Every structure is written in C-alpha cells, then in structure tokens.
C-alpha cells in the first residue's frame, strides 16, 4: 500500500487550549479513513491544518511526496488535496453548474472541456436537474452534494469531507453514502469526519478516534468498536448505531 498523505506529530493550540496534540497518521491510496470523536475533539482543526487553512504550531504534513504544512490552501488544493466545509460554502450568486465549473477549471483551461467536466460531475452527484438553478435557496442536501461535486470536479487525489451527512434525512444520507462510495471506487482517497456512526463504520476502511485533541486509536472499524479506551472515552457514552 502506498501512502498518499502522511501527518506527523501535528499540534495546534488556541490561546491556552490545546486543540490538536501530537497527532500523526497515514492515508493510503484508495482508502477511506474516517475520523470520529465528540464535538470539540479537534477533528475539524486537524482538517484545517491538513488543508492549510490554519498553520500548525508544530509537526509535518506530507502529501504525495511534498511537504505541505507551510503551504496556502490554494497551493495544497492544486496538488490534489481538496476539502469540503462543515458549514457548506456554495457560491450563492452562481448557478449550480457555474459552481461546479469553478472546480472543473482547476485542471483544464478550455471552457468546453471544463463544461463537460462540470456536467459529468453533476451527473455523478445527481445534480443535473438543478444545473441552472441559483445555488442560493437550494435545500441543505443539495448544497452538500454541490459542495462535493465542486471539490470532485478539481480531479483530487485526496478529498477531505467534513460532515457531508450532517443534517440530512436518512434517505438523503443513504444517497450521499452511495455517491461517496462511487467516488472512492473511482480511485480517490478520502479523509472523512462524520457523526453518523453507522455511516462512518460502513464507509471507512479504517477509523481514527480523536479525543481532547489526541489520537486515541486508529484501526479497522471492527477493532475500534472493541478498543477499551475508545469505548470508555467515547463510544461508551454516546455510541449510536442509528443516525440521529
């Protein structure tokens, strides 16, 4: 297995609060690595560091053979590591197609090719019927898919998905899981943060548990649910097999 993303000994504090402490992990090519942990555990901070949105206090991030911890978000995205936002950020004044087109332009200059790429991504994510609708005023489920389609249009090697299922109904969630699977089958590796346990257990090849900014455990889903530290710290209190 080739490692596409390596995070090594990363720490970040905000004032006195240690949000991330000496966290390290590998992401293998073609793998989905899920992150779980209570709210405020530091998952999103870790994502922000990997995506370059906030600088780490210490530690290294290596993506596809290049050190990225000092890079700006757009430089990292250009290398092929692309994130979605927990609170979706659609380009409200543009149509769905124009939104996806922005992503499609990253690796193609020609408008015709970019258009085709956008149409293809909208097809994969089931957005075709909404293509010419303004992004403003779409339902949350559609906006989440838009966020995904836009990121996907950039031809990423690795996707960081921050709670793409949160706030969706079970049906919408199931559709989204299918979309994520098909993206993985297309060869894209993924880091995902998710609160819906059933979903993350089913999707992830491995799971990392973050608690108080620390990496508590990492391993196959079946191992994680049996890990006594994990059960004590997290699963024991709020483990839900069904989505909430």
């Amino acid at each position, binding site marked *: 297995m080739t490692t596409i993303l390596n995070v090594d000994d990363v720490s970040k504090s905000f004032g006195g609060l240690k949000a991330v402490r000496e966290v390290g992990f590998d992401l293998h090519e073609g793998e989905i690595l899920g992150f779980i942990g209570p709210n405020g555990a530091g998952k999103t901070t870790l994502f922000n560091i990997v995506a370059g949105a906030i600088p780490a206090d210490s530690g290294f991030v290596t993506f596809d053979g290049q050190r990225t911890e000092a890079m700006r978000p757009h430089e990292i995205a250009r290398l092929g590591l692309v994130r979605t936002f927990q609170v979706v950020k*659609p*380009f409200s004044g543009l149509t769905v197609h124009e939104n996806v087109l922005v992503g499609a332009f990253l690796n193609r200059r020609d408008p*015709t090719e970019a258009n085709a790429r956008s149409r293809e991504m909208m097809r994969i994510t089931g957005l075709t019927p909404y293509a010419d609708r303004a992004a403003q005023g779409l339902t949350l489920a559609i906006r989440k898919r838009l966020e995904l389609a836009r990121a996907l249009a950039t031809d990423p090697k690795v996707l960081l998905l921050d709670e793409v299922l949160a706030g969706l109904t079970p049906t919408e969630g199931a559709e989204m899981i299918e979309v994520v699977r098909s993206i993985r089958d297309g060869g894209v590796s993924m880091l995902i943060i998710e609160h819906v346990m059933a979903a993350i257990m089913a999707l992830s090849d491995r799971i990392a548990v973050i608690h108080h900014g620390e990496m508590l455990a990492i391993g196959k889903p079946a191992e994680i649910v049996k890990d006594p530290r994990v059960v004590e710290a997290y699963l024991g209190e709020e483990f839900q097999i069904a989505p909430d």
Partner: protein
Amino acid sequence: MNRLSTLVKSSSSDLLVLLGVVAILSILPVALNPFLLSVATGVLIFALAAIGWNVLSGFAGQFSFGHAAFFGLGAYTVAILLTKYSVSPWLGLVVGGLVGAAFGLVVGWVSFRFGLKGAYFALATFAVAEMLRITFNNLDYLGAGIGITIPLVYGDDWVRMQFSNTREIHYWLILGLLAVAVVATIAIKRSRIGSYMFAVREDEDAAAALGINPLKTKLVAMSISGFITAVAGGYFTLFFLFIDPDVVFGAVVSVAILLRPIVGGMGTIWGPVIGAAVLSLLGELTRSLVRDPPAFLSFIEGANGLDQVLFGLILVVMIIRAPDGILGWFRRRRKQAQT
C-alpha cells in the same frame, strides 16, 4: 483560433446582441445633431470606463470607490505624451492603459496583501484617487491646477487623432473600443479567470479550497479593470481636448463610473452599457425639463440643481426598489412570471 471559435459558439447570444447594438449605434450620427452626438460620445466614454469598473467590482467583487484614479492616469498619460513628447495618442492610449494596469497592480497588491475588503477597500480606493487629484493639482510639470489643453490642429490628422469632422470619427472610434471591451468581458466571463473572479467574489475561502489564488485573481481583475478605465480616460482627453485634476480625478468621476454598472446591473456584461445609456438619458431629460419646463411646471425654469435633486431621488428609489439594477429587476420579474 480554436479558442476563438468556442468563444463564439458558447456566447453567440451575447455576441449577436453586441452586433445588433453596434449596428444601431453606428448609424446614430446620421440622426443626431452635433450637440447630441457629443453627448453620445461622452456616454460611450463613460460606458467604457464603467466596463472597466465592472470587471473589478462586478466580476471580482472588490468594490472600488476610486476608479477616477485610473481614468485620470489614462487621461494624463495621453495628454502628457502628446503635448510634451508628441507621441501619437494611438500609442498614448495603449501606454495609458498600461499605466492604469500597473497602478492597479500596485494599489491592489498593497491593499489586498493587507487584507482590505468591503467598505475598507472602497474607502482606500477613494483615498488613493483623492491623493492623486491633490498631487496632480500641485505638480507644475503636469499643469497643476490649470490642467492641460491639447492644441488644435487643422484638417485631418490621424496621428494626432484630430479630424475636421471630429465628432463622427471620434464617435465611431470610441464605439469600436467599446465593442472590443464588451467582447473582452464576454471572453473573461466564459474563461477560467472569469469563473475564478466570480468564485472569489462569492467566497474567498471556498475559492481557495478549490485551488484558486484569491490574491492573484484579484490582482488580475484590478489590472484589467485599470487598463480599460484608463483607456477610457485617455479617450476623454482626446475628445474634450482639455483636462485638469478635478475633472478627471474628482470623486464625482469615481461616482459617475460606478453608478453606471450598478444602475444597469453589476457583474453582468450589459449592465455598464445599459446603465450608461439610461443614466445619460435621465440626465438629459431632467436637464431639458429644467431648461424648458411645461407650462404647469414653469416655476422650475432655470432652477440650477433641480435636475440633480431628481437624479438623487431616482438613485434612492432605485436602490430601494431595484437593488440589483435594471437587468436584475427584469430577471426577477421574469422569474416571478414563471412561477
């Protein structure tokens, strides 16, 4: 050539409209008296300046309150090159545009680097334009407060761009420039850089997450914008043959430039042109109303400033009633009609 043909294919409707508009406008000189033709030429010059503003503020979302800076730099570049170095305005317009673009790069780099956005960026651009106005007012080499007058030549002189039937030719030339600028904005809108400008306008963080360099995108917008508006300023010199710092750098100029796209529709291809046409039509109407009012309004005759009161009122009502301009208003009406 390939990219040109895709541009033509993908924006055929915009280009057809352009063809129609240019066709109609180009026969206008036949119908207009000399005074109105001058007015129309002024409209086209400010429409061109407004197209430049629209690239930065409408497309890339960085609201400039100081585009007079570019307009004035273009105007002065042409005037100085012509009067002091006898450089043909043809070259002067290009140099003026480049000066505008370079100035845009410098101002943009400093302000965006320091994170100026929204109202702060607007105020900073305003201050920059005012600083240029004051500076030019104090530089003797540039004519200081007296300004620069372009000496008249007799007969046709294509090098100095003065003609015996000066109005028609200037009208057609500026119309041509305007058409070129419209084509340029259509091309920008369709291309990657246009798409990136829209993305940066809507959400910089989301844009950066998709691999867009917001700083670079804004700088490109600023330099294109500065170029176009400076060319318009240069043409102002050629047509009116006189400039001074207040005329080309004044806050009134900045406002005149930015009002056009806002009235027409910010961030659209045709907004600046429609806004320019509507605003000048309104201006002329109110002015002629005050000059020569109907009987029941005879008391307003010659009331200096009344046209401006009306203008301010229209502006206020428009911002409240049609905040996204004429095009936006029509679009909303159409959408309402559909549902």
